[in-house]
């Protein structure tokens, strides 16, 4: 995938969407009725212009290019993103300690596979409980508690 070429199209789409949202904003009752729209309109125009410039600049490039990069790298990123979303979803019902232990075990699996499982379990437990202690007792930041029942 030619991301450089793609970026031009993404910029135009994003700029147009942002412009649309800006124009739909309510008029201000205080001060200049258009005041809060001027700056965003300028930004949207800039983004659209830049996107068009990028499209023109890369017009001769192909969209699908053979990147010799390891496809496993893309999967690696996707796996981390999915596990992260899962973590955030579990954090509220399961609380910090349980959710983090699950999260770290999954992430360690992505990084290490079936190697050194004992080490990974020990690191997970020490880190999770250590951080819980530091935040709750030393820093006074309360991490989410177990909340399922």
């Amino acid at each position, binding site marked *: 995938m030619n991301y450089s070429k793609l970026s031009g199209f993404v910029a135009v789409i994003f700029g147009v969407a942002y412009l649309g949202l800006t124009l739909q904003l309510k008029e*201000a009752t*205080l001060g200049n009725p258009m005041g809060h729209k001027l*700056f*965003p309109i300028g930004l949207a125009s800039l983004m659209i212009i*830049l996107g068009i410039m990028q499209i023109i600049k890369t017009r001769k490039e192909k969209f699908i290019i053979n990147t010799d990069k390891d496809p496993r790298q893309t999967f690696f990123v996707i796996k981390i993103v999915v596990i992260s979303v899962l973590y*955030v979803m579990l954090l509220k019902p399961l609380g910090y300690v349980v959710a983090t232990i699950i999260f770290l075990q999954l992430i360690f699996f992505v990084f290490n596979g079936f190697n050194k499982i004992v080490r990974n379990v020990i690191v997970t437990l020490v880190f999770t409980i250590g951080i819980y202690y530091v935040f709750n007792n030393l820093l006074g930041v309360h991490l989410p508690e177990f909340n399922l029942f």
Partner: protein
Amino acid sequence: MAETLGLFLDGFKVALTLENLLWVTAGGLLGTIIGMLPGLGPATGVAVLIPMTFGMDPTAALITMCGVYYGAMFGGSRSSILINTPGDGAAVAATFDGYPMAMNGRAESALAISGIASFIGGILATIAMVFVATPVSKFAIKFGPAEYFMLMLFALSATVTMAKDNLIKGFMSISLGLMISTVGIDSLTGIKRFTFGIPELGSGIDFLIVIIAIFALGEVFKSYKHVSQPQKKANKKFGKIWITMQEWKDSWKPILRSTPIGFFLGALPGAGGTMASLMSYNNEKQLSKDPDSFGKGNIVGLAAPEAANNAASVGALIPMLTLGIPGSGTTAVMMGALLMLGIQPGPLFFTQQADLAWGLIASMVVGNIILIIINIPLAGLLVKVLSVPQRVLYPIVLALTFIGVYAIGTSYVDLYLLIIFGVVGIFFSKSGIPTPPLILAIIVGSGMEKNFRSALKINDGSYDAFFSSTICIVLFILTIITLLYPIVSMILEKRKVAKNQA
């Protein structure tokens, strides 16, 4: 001037309490560990470790962050020298001669000179800063909204062009950053903008989240290439870590020459440590009687960039502290840490919060000294960190980003934003869009819009406001020059190539 020095010395009293010394040491050690990881430098170190300062008073928090900052810089050069893996761009130049030195059995000298050169560069630059900071602040107090707007415009465009980024992509990065800063309730009219009905977005998107997403999460995403290869092993047995008299004679002049280069480039928006270290390296190579020895383990080739890099890190704090405009990704993160502590850098910082300002500068000196103490005698011990598997450290950094972001706002929405911006960071890196302009734009964004609207209001809506004073016109011309410079230099380059081919 006597008054300035007095304030500076008072700052030391604050910095040198036992508690603060412990914090700066702890920060320095943790920063060193993070800095040693490939891809992670001072910006990430500060971003990930900000939650460490929760519950501290501002002075202790500041000094801890200074420890992290310097620790990460030292850590970056450690791994450059020993395993040829720079932590961030600014540590790249340290691999040119540092790694060959370590390979030739001179790891001890390399570690020592990198520490000594960094120390001298950092201290001299800090002394220079003591003299520059107050006059710059006094000058900046005269700035009105129009001047500030033009200054921010200049700083943003200079960030793109100085870093030699692709102009279109650099400005895309800026536009997105400024757009992100418009999310939330507009402070002048009370109207909600781009909140999509999510109440948590009313207060806007905290730029710390974006910073942590791009610098920490993004680097973990990119870590595949580091963890998929076998980890490079460093020699862990050292003799006495020190330099010989001859090595000192060779390096002291290059250190003194490189410090001002670093300081000056650091203070310019967008230039920063990477450019400073590379420029001083090339400078010494040109001055050298034996340029061929560079890249093969010449101690000068390590001393010069290390001094310049550290001097640049201090110089970069000048625009951040005196104008409230950070000039690099790393200082932007530092500014984020300050803002979170309720400290607003800007022209009034040195007059209204003088004790804190000078406490910060004194902390930097103390941080520098402590880091030297940790790094030279304990280098052997610290290097053991390099043998901790990266497959363990990256997952921990990942978990820390989530816990850190949660701690900042105790909001689940922030955690989703973290993931979204982590993905944006990956898209940026794949398409070659630079990220520092995005970070700078998010930080200056709301101030930029406020100044833009105030300037218009004062001038009854007329855009003449932005050309009404000499300062504005000078800044406008500077902005135009920064925009035209890359185009002109590209045309000149093409002509040169064409001539050579003819």
